[in-house]
């Protein structure tokens, strides 16, 4: 009996039944997909980092190194499990070609290394430790797709040739956000090629489980061990690994939240409309003595069945879609360890989604119970008042616009030139890096002099970075990497205060400010280097706090004359802009050619290329997610509007028929619907745009601050936000309206007269 009733109900309300099922499936699918991707990403990263035995603490160092002192330090600490000093032979990108592709425009620090002995292994796709033979090179897997490489391709370093024997996964530097890339060669080749590059050291520590990495880092600094270079910790590596793909997953997660919201709303309105329609029948059932509980359970069992179908369909679809979306994850990080756990979580998540929907269904069905049989028979009561079905159209339009705009805005923000200023890089057209040379300061000054005389250059700023000791309020000493120069010319983004404008001012990166527990306005003591092991304290006022993810995120900025001293320059950067930005490409090429002949570690790059080089991966992923959210937003809006307008038209069929009898044409009636729909659609779009910019920015800010970009503001593309997004939504809405309004043509003038 129950079965037959439900089946008949499905037949009678095909559109509503199918839509309900689609909503339930879509909600389950998107959440399932987020869980599946997120689970496999984090599990893949974990298993890669486990197999490769990623170091817990890593100090990069350029210059001389005293291995015995490091070993002594390490042996005397109870928290060190293992220590190793790994060599990295930095090569000139201009000297490199792989499979016929020059790496001259590559933004990474590319270099050679050999397989490590005790940990930090470079591994292949099957998690095996790679042992290259002489003449072979293993290439970072991220270059495989970027340059379309295959095994057997040739890698050329100057005139030397190596054969690409395979691809390696590097638990530390897999992400494009890590600025170095390691190529693995045989020990003999490393020694042979040694004169072609400049050597750096990675001083790596593996700590015992449960050790405090920060305490270790402080101890390392206090011990005055080699520290000419950034410090990197396990958690930073994990974060960089997770972020480039994690952003895409977060966008999908956001979409799934929006879809769940829309589903609940739509299903609720469908139920209310159906109750409105079934009013008489319900009254009848109550009048003949069927209990409210029974009637409710009759309706509820229908939705239970639908949600079971929807859940299964959604989970299956998620598993199918996860395949192509997860390709990159698998390629970069390998297979996830325990997929059955992830699948279990996914199913649990989908069950939770269906549970939430059913809860809302149950509560909505409760509306029916409040009415007595008599109330129902007389057509009074709460749900007798017709629900405004245009309201959900407006709300869902806003949600759809929001869903489209958030990933768009994130994407446009990350790809905008200004975005680098959130990362601690000055906004300029061109950036020149001078590193790993015998004397950075001399060659940087020489380059600066040359630029000074170049009349294509509009403005430039030279920055030298050196390492300084400082004392924290609690008396501990702390290492600061201070970038000295004129920071007013190409400023970075300051979350608080501003750049150091006066002598004796210093700006700190947010990570330093947090770690040192120092805020803008505070004063700190920094020791400048007078040479001959003499140091003099300089009292520095903190002028501002900025966000930075370069060089491990712990940096500081000051004017040259604040630290007019003998501290060695670790690296230099020149930011510059040209009079005519269109000449940037040729200018960069000319200077690249000029410096490629010298082995002086000078890298010339357009900031735009720097962005694509560093965030290209992330941007591409977000674009993928953005395309998905546009498609799903349009699809959802189309389905929802089709459904709701059909319900409206169905509900007002009698009135429309009467209007036709009185002389209204189909076009007149359609026009009225169109006007009313627009009345909700357009404000919906406006609300959606606002939400996509303001709360969307807050939301994205939370995500991006996890990336190190604090004080985040959307850099929106006004054409995309104010023209394309509304246009896309309007097209989807118009299509749905057009299809639904066809029904108006099938309403006849005499219908309302015949029916009685």
């Amino acid at each position: 009996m129950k079965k037959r009733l439900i089946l008949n109900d499905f037949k009678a309300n095909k559109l509503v039944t199918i839509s309900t099922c689609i909503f339930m499936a879509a909600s389950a699918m998107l959440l399932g997909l987020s869980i599946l991707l997120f689970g496999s990403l984090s599990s893949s990263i974990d298993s890669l980092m486990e197999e490769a035995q990623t170091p817990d603490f890593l100090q990069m160092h350029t210059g001389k190194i005293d291995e015995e002192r490091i070993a002594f330090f390490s042996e005397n600490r109870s928290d060190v499990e293992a220590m190793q000093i790994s060599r990295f032979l930095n090569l000139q990108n201009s000297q490199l070609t792989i499979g016929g592709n020059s790496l001259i425009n590559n933004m990474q620090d590319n270099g050679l290394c050999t397989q490590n002995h005790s940990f930090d292994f470079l591994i292949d796709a099957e998690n095996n430790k790679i042992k290259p033979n002489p003449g072979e090179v293993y290439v970072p897997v991220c270059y495989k797709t970027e340059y379309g490489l295959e095994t057997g391709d040739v890698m050329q370093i100057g005139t030397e040739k190596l054969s690409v024997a395979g691809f390696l996964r590097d638990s530390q530097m897999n992400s494009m956000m890590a600025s170095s890339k390691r190529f693995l060669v045989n020990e003999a080749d490393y020694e042979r090629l040694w004169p072609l590059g400049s050597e750096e050291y990675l001083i790596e520590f593996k700590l015992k489980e449960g050790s405090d990495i920060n305490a270790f880092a402080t101890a390392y600094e206090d011990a005055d061990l080699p520290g000419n270079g950034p410090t990197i910790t396990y958690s930073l590596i994990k974060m960089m690994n997770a972020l480039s793909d994690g952003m895409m997953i977060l966008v999908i997660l956001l979409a799934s939240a929006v879809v769940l919201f829309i589903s609940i709303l739509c299903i609720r309105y469908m139920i209310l409309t159906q109750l409105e329609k079934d009013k008489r029948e319900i009254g009848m059932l109550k009048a003949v003595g069927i209990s409210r509980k029974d009637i409710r359970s009759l309706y509820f069992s229908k939705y239970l069945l639908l949600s079971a179908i929807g859940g299964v369909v959604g989970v299956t679809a998620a598993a199918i879609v996860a395949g192509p979306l997860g390709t990159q994850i698998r390629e970069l990080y390998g297979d996830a360890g325990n997929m059955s756990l992830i699948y279990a979580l996914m199913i649990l998540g989908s069950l939770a989604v269906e549970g939430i929907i059913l809860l809302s269904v149950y509560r909505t069905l409760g509306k029916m119970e409040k009415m007595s049989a008599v109330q129902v028979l007389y057509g009074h009561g709460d749900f007798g008042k017709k629900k405004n079905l245009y309201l959900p159209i407006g709300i869902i339009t806003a949600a759809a616009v929001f869903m489209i705009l958030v990933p768009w805005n994130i994407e446009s923000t990350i790809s905008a030139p200004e975005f680098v200023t959130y990362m601690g890089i000055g906004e300029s057209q061109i950036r020149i890096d001078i590193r790993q040379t015998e004397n950075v300061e001399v060659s940087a000054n020489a380059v600066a002099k040359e630029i000074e005389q170049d009349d294509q250059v509009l403005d430039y700023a030279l920055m030298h970075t050196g390492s300084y000791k400082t004392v924290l309020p609690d008396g501990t000493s702390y290492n600061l990497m201070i970038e000295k120069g004129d920071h007013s010319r190409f400023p970075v983004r300051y979350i608080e205060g501003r750049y150091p404008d006066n002598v004796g001012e210093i700006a700190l990166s947010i990570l330093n400010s947090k770690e040192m527990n120092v805020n803008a306005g505070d004063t700190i003591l920094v020791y400048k280097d007078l040479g001959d092991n003499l140091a003099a304290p300089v009292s520095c006022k903190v002028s501002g706090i900025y966000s930075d993810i370069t060089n491990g995120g712990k940096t500081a900025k000051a004017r040259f004359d604040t630290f007019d001293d003998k501290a060695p320059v670790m690296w230099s950067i020149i930011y510059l802009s040209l009079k005519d930005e269109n000449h940037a490409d040729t200018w960069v090429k000319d200077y690249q050619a000029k410096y490629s002949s010298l082995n002086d570690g000078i890298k010339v790059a357009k900031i735009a290329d720097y962005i694509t080089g560093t965030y290209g991966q992330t941007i591409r992923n977000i674009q993928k997610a953005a395309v998905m959210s546009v498609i799903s937003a349009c699809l959802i809006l189309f389905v929802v509007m089709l459904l709701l307008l059909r319900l409206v038209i169905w509900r007002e069929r009698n009135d429309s028929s009467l209007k036709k009898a009185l002389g209204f044409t189909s076009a007149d009636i359609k026009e009225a619907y169109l006007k009313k729909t627009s009345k909700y659609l357009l404000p919906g779009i406006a609300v959606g745009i606002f939400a996509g910019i303001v709360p969307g920015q807050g939301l994205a800010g939370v995500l991006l601050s996890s990336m190190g970009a604090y004080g985040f503001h959307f850099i929106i593309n006004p054409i995309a936000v104010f023209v394309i997004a509304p246009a896309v939504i309007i097209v989807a809405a118009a299509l749905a309206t057009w299809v639904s309004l066809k029904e108006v043509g099938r309403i006849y003038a005499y219908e309302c007269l015949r029916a009685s």
Partner: protein
Amino acid sequence: MSEILKVRNLSKGNILKKISFEMQEGEMIAIMGPSGSGKSTLLYNVSGMDQADEGEVLLGSTEIVSLSEDEKARLRLSKMGFVFQQMNVLANLNLIDNIVLPAVHANKKQKRELYQRAQALMDDFHIGDLAERRVNEVSGGELQRACICRSMMMKPEIIFADEPTGALNQAAATDVIEAFLKINREGTSVLMVTHDSKVAGMCERILYILDGEIKGELKLGKYTQDDAKEREKRTSRWLNEMGW
């Protein structure tokens, strides 16, 4: 006197079978016949609400059957008025808004004048006080008179009425029929389906329909109060003959 309506060989499925009749300007005709004989269908097809299969309907000089849906709708709006047994109205509008609905639709600029006209019509039919009432707050007779007001808003040439008193009690029916007589006296033609021989007796002519064909016609002439008794008698005698 010229013809306002001329119906020639109008057919619809097997419900209407080559029906032909004429109607003079200012005439008031009753259509009678048993239930299911096709009276309503005839009205829907003559007024262009339904698409006839064959034949022609001339409203003045305009042929209706061959017009498009939209042209027919426009013609209904401007030249015809309708009153139905079920008193179809929009439940979410009040009485006067229902009355002006088609007129305002046809003539958006003169909203104010139209509301004044609606109020005047309501006053004429003694429902002037009910303008702001909701439609479920008035009686059937009042609502039907409001429908008559609605049908008169555009000063139509002809009014089609389908059993306008069918759902009303005797007193209410009398009010309604008086309203029809009044608008007819003022020059509007009325074609009315009715089951009430008393009502039919007040019309100038009665057409009797059976199984989609006109089986007979009774000419009574213009109604006056004096010969009411006599007309009633003639009508029932004739209806008896027709097998009523």
